[in-house]
């Protein structure tokens, strides 16, 4: 029914299931290996729930030694492995394979070291994003990247997806906040990268691992940077009669040298859905609603609130409210934070897209999106990380109506192609996974994708880790490694030489 196909399963591996099971049980004892169909159902999908697949076997190791032995066994026996954290991927990154072992890292759930002097925390990968903040907040610290699933998502998964969040324009993505990793390669080799110090020289494997969507290695330990919580935070709620004015206001805030802690925009359908749901007091007669949050020392925040208000009024804002209390600030956010479930109330199903565009293209993209909605016969509501141009169009559909999921997927693909066409990218924070895999050629040439896959070959020559994700076409490493050289030719007569 759905458009995205996974690689054909290896029947030989499926036939060896019993043998693989007993080998894994010898490595991970007791309940750490799950093979009962009913129990494996819990792992058949992630947060991209339109796709489901039972894995061959589920393994939940508890030690690095077990991870290493499981991976080495799978490597030696040509068994595919899908690593999984909390299973909150919105792009299908943890979708199991029929012929693959699902490796859950959720038993790695301990905080290993809290080091306030060095502002570093060492945790196992199954610790949740919010769990890190919980472990350090008694001293006023927090971990900055805050994906909306932070209560559930694991830091290992954050590494895999290079997760962002509302505050990343000011505080960076996961990649800017990770100091070190321990990871296991598919061969079972254990590698340590970085630590509590900064910028280890040598190739930046931390950068490669962060955002690699489980294709390069399995993370077994993470060192992150923590920050002292800002002294205070205040927010403005600003309504505009047209999205162009909202876009201009955002540009002028940044041009004034202000980088807000958070800057979120919603369009009319999203505003109405959110207001109907949580009654946050959003104005309903506006085309665009902007929440600007300023955080930092009190002396700075009070000053900047005034600056932002001036800019908003100069840009035809029809509504401006400034939070006067922590409670009011939370109310401003309540609607935005409930936008997804709010949309869930007005539509049986929705698809959440994740393209990024240059901000100047916002009015054009919103207009084109409305046209595309008419073409596909579907509605769309938009929430938007306005500071960094990351769009989250929510496409409303009903999976019980024949053809609507396919129409929604086609609409989503059109939106992402539009993002690329205006100079943006396919995904700002949700990852490629299976969801955007087949759109990769819209953004990258064949040579671009080949070079990325050669990185994969340096880590996992047999393509055993999470195959079928990210790359539309799997090339064998031997094929990718060939060089087509033109010996003896001097095809550069016009390069200046000395």
């Amino acid at each position, binding site marked *: 029914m759905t458009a995205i196909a996974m690689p054909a399963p290896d029947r030989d591996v499926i036939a060896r299931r019993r043998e693989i099971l007993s080998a894994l049980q010898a490595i991970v004892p007791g309940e750490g290996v799950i093979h009962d169909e009913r129990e494996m159902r819990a792992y058949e999908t992630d947060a991209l729930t339109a796709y489901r697949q039972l894995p061959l076997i589920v393994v939940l190791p508890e030690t690095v030694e077990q991870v290493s032995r499981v991976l080495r066994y799978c490597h030696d026996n040509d068994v595919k492995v899908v690593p999984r954290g909390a299973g909150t991927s919105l792009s299908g990154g943890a979708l199991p394979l029929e012929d693959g072992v699902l490796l859950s890292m959720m038993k790695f759930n301990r905080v290993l070291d809290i080091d306030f002097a060095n502002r570093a925390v060492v945790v196992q990968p199954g610790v949740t994003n919010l769990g890190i903040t919980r472990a350090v907040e008694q001293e006023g610290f927090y971990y900055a990247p805050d994906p909306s699933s932070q209560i559930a998502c694991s830091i290992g998964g954050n590494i895999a997806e290079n997760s962002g969040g509302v505050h990343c324009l000011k505080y960076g993505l996961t990649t800017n906040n990770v100091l070190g990793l321990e990871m296991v390669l598919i061969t079972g080799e254990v590698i340590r990268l970085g630590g509590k110090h900064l910028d280890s020289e040598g190739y930046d*494997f931390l950068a490669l691992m962060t955002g690699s969507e489980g294709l390069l290695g399995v993370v077994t330990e993470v060192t992150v940077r923590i920050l002292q919580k800002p002294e205070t935070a205040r927010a403005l709620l600003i309504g505009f009669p047209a999205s162009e004015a909202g876009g201009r206001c955002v540009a002028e805030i940044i041009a004034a040298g202000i980088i807000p802690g958070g800057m979120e925009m919603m369009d009319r359908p999203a505003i109405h859905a959110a207001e109907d749901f949580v009654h946050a007091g959003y104005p309903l007669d506006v085309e665009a609603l902007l929440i600007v949050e300023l955080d930092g020392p009190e002396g700075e925040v009070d000053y900047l609130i005034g600056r932002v208000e001036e800019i908003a009024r100069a840009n035809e804002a029809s509504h401006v409210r400034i939070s006067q209390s922590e409670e009011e600030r939370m109310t401003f956010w309540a609607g935005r934070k409930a936008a997804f479930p709010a949309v869930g109330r007005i539509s049986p199903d929705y698809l959440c897209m994740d393209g990024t565009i240059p901000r100047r293209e916002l009015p054009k993209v919103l207009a084109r999106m409305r046209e595309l909605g008419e073409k596909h016969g579907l509605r769309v509501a938009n929430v938007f990380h306005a500071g960094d141009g990351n769009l989250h169009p929510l496409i409303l559909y009903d999976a019980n109506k024949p053809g609507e999921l396919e129409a929604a997927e086609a609409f989503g693909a059109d939106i992402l192609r539009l993002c690329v066409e205006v100079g943006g990218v396919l995904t700002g924070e949700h990852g490629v996974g299976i969801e955007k895999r087949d759109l990769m050629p819209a953004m990258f040439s064949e040579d671009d994708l080949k070079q990325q896959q050669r990185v994969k070959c340096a880590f996992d020559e047999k393509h055993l880790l999470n195959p079928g994700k990210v790359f539309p076409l799997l090339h064998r490493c031997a094929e990718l490694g060939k060089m087509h050289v033109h010996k003896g030719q001097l095809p550069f007569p016009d390069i200046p030489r000395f």
Partner: protein
Amino acid sequence: MDATFKPRDTRQVEDAVKWAAGEERPLEVVGQGSKRKLGRPVQAAHVLDLSDLTGIETYEPAELVLTVKAGTPVAEVEKLVADNGQELSFEPMDYGPLLGGDPGRGTIGGVLAANLSGPRRIKSGAARDHVLGMEAVSGRGEIFNSGGKVVKNVTGYDLPRALCGAFGTLAVATTVTLKVNPKPETAATFVLGGLNEADAIDALCRAMGSSAEVSGAAHLPQDVDGEAGKTLLRLEGFEASVDYRFRTLEKLLADFGTPVRLAQPETETLWRSIRDVLPFAQAETPVWRLSVAPASGPRLVELVKEKVDATAFYDWSGGLVWLSCNDGAIHHTEIRAALEEAGGGHATLVRADPSVRSTVPVFQPQAAPLAALTRRLKEQFDPKGILNAGRMVAGV
């Protein structure tokens, strides 16, 4: 045939590399050559000189995004963004003075190849934290694009970031896209005098763990400062905010003494001097760059000084130690052993004769599995080993 190729566009870079790969002729890849004395010496018959590959492609201040040709001078890029009230917030250091060259040279490609940063590293990151996209030519002679031209993007592996700090051994960058940031309205320095090294780093770490948003944390001991020693904290931002945070630090660090405040012009001069390691620029002694957990900085220096006659000062809240060996010897065994004992990190031999840099490991030696992965990555990008061969590690 010895030659220097000086391409003017990406296509010419591709042609030169393709030819070199076909002939298996190693190339030394350089911009303006300002950091040629950094790393291991490269043995190559040919030079690929990118200093004519220049120009701003697009710059949109409101989008915080800048795309430039890799050979564009850093000075030109910094002036352009400054004229628009912005900056490269990773504050790339200038190796010129320390390595015996002129100041103010170097290309943006070189800044990324060496993953440069400055005192603001502890708040805003290094070059790698600000690169968004890259067009490059691999050692196979193939042009590839990676990343994008927007500030938030997770589409595909993060190659632009991974190619930073590779010293041109994987690919030749031809066009780079960077994130720029607003330039702070003003800056000030909070100065404490007369602290010993352990107390100084305690004070810096306490300030870094506060909400004062410190953007520079350095300590110049007595033998570097010439006076009683100075412990320095930089505050940047809007005037009202800097004043407010200065008072926050006064309260927070009251038990370390009464501070002196330096105004913006003195602050800029001072931090440029720390950034560019000017205290060691006049001499010709060997200089090490040691990256450790900040609180371990003083212990590391103490351990080194038990064995070696050395002078050292601290940046990054104690996490970056610049260390000069006063007797002119390299002392790599003693220094790396001290680093290990102090909890580990990274020791880079920054200033030494070429003969020394080709025999002593310039960068911190890697454990076997990591070294093997390094070689495999090199082979995937540059199977013939023609790009800056041996610049980082022999055989890579």
